[in-house]
């Protein structure tokens, strides 16, 4: 079973040289720490940065330089700053090659819900609806089940949707799954996790074909 860092490391293996990548808040943010050697990717922050760098050294925080999670950050050489309209022009115009974000629920058709629990939590969608409606390549990083032990990989989402038929891949603590027209397709198992465990934890249609390899992290 993976921890959050494991999920981030596994997603980092998907990165390709030259890609521009938008990382959501939470586990996705950690992906930036595990970019494979020899791969040069630029991180886009939708509040207006391309070429986001690591957190600043203590005492060097600049209140005028934050990421979309409102965290103080730095810029890499070759970075640039732009306004919100330009930022979403990049996103909507499909110039960002990969979006990684969290989710509360994903359906086996690739629908995603992550912005609202009616009557309880309404923080807003931020940039998530633009990102999922636009990106060619969307990876969801999340736990396979919720705190009550219920699957988050469903036949149909029960929460208000963020986007429809958009998720391409899911990486959880248990598995890597592709979203195909026939449902979730199991690609890899997390170390020490059985296929049966994954089947039991997945409510939506799940395709298990042949031997399922264990991830190499």
């Amino acid at each position, binding site marked *: 079973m993976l921890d959050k860092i494991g999920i981030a490391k596994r997603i980092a293996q998907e990165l390709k040289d030259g890609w521009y990548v938008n990382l959501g808040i939470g586990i996705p943010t950690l992906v930036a720490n595990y970019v494979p050697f020899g791969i040069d990717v630029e991180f886009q922050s939708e*509040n207006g940065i391309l070429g986001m760098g690591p957190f600043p050294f203590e005492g060097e925080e600049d209140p005028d330089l934050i990421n979309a999670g409102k965290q103080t950050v730095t810029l890499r050489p070759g970075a640039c700053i732009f306004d919100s309209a330009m930022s979403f022009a990049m996103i909507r115009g499909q110039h960002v090659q990969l979006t990684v974000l969290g989710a509360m629920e994903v359906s086996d058709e690739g629908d995603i819900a992550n912005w609202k629990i009616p009557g309880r939590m309404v923080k807003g*969608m931020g940039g998530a609806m633009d990102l999922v409606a636009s990106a060619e390549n969307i990876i969801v990083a999340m736990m396979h089940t919720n705190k009550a032990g219920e699957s988050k990989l469903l036949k149909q989402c029960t929460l208000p949707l963020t986007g429809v038929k958009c998720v391409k891949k899911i990486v959880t603590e248990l598995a890597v799954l592709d979203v195909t027209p026939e449902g979730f397709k199991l690609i890899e198992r997390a170390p020490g996790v059985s296929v049966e465990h994954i089947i039991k934890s997945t409510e939506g249609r799940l395709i298990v074909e042949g031997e399922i390899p264990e991830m190499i992290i």
Partner: protein
Amino acid sequence: MKKVVNDADEAIHDIQSGMTLMLGGFGLCGIPENCIAALVKKGINNLVCISNNAGVDHFGLGLLLQNRQIRKMISSYVGENDEFERQMLSGELEVDLIPQGSLAERCRAGGAGIPAFFTPAGYGTEIAEGKEVRIFNGKPHILESALTADFAIVKAWKGDHYGNLIFKGTARNFNPMMAMAGKITIAEVEELVEPGALDPNFIHTPGIFIQRIFQGKNYEKRIEQRTVRTKSQ
């Protein structure tokens, strides 16, 4: 061209209860602190505020919320604010949540004389309810309309007497497009300079969009999430 005013009080003197305001900023970054303070002091209410976020409990737009001056918020993300959540869940505050990119583009459209445009964002979600859907290149899009405001209030790093503005870092965010979309746009700047002091090649917001400008003071620039690494890393 008489755009320079003395301070925030003078800049906002004719903003009235019930008006629609746009306020720049992302989180607490790049918000018009002086004008927000002046609005709190002025005490007008029933405001409709268009701003990506709603501040935090005791700063930014949170001050206006606390003071019950806002009737409706139009935003993309409103977490980090208990009083906001309380007013919203109790029905005291009307809230219109808009995808961040659509919010940015709708403000730009308002300023650019484009009354409506198609975007894929929000298709198939409750955001699309009641909106026209049309397929382009096999992909469904929804029709979104322009946003404008009685007043737009923006914060810049430097500005000149003609209203030309430059922003610093990610304090730029929504400020440039909101500046375009105000019937009257007020800019507060950290430093007001003479015409000619800014390089014409590197102006972020052309002065044509700005009707009033003043040099603000005592900027707090609070940090919401102070994240650092230690030198040893």
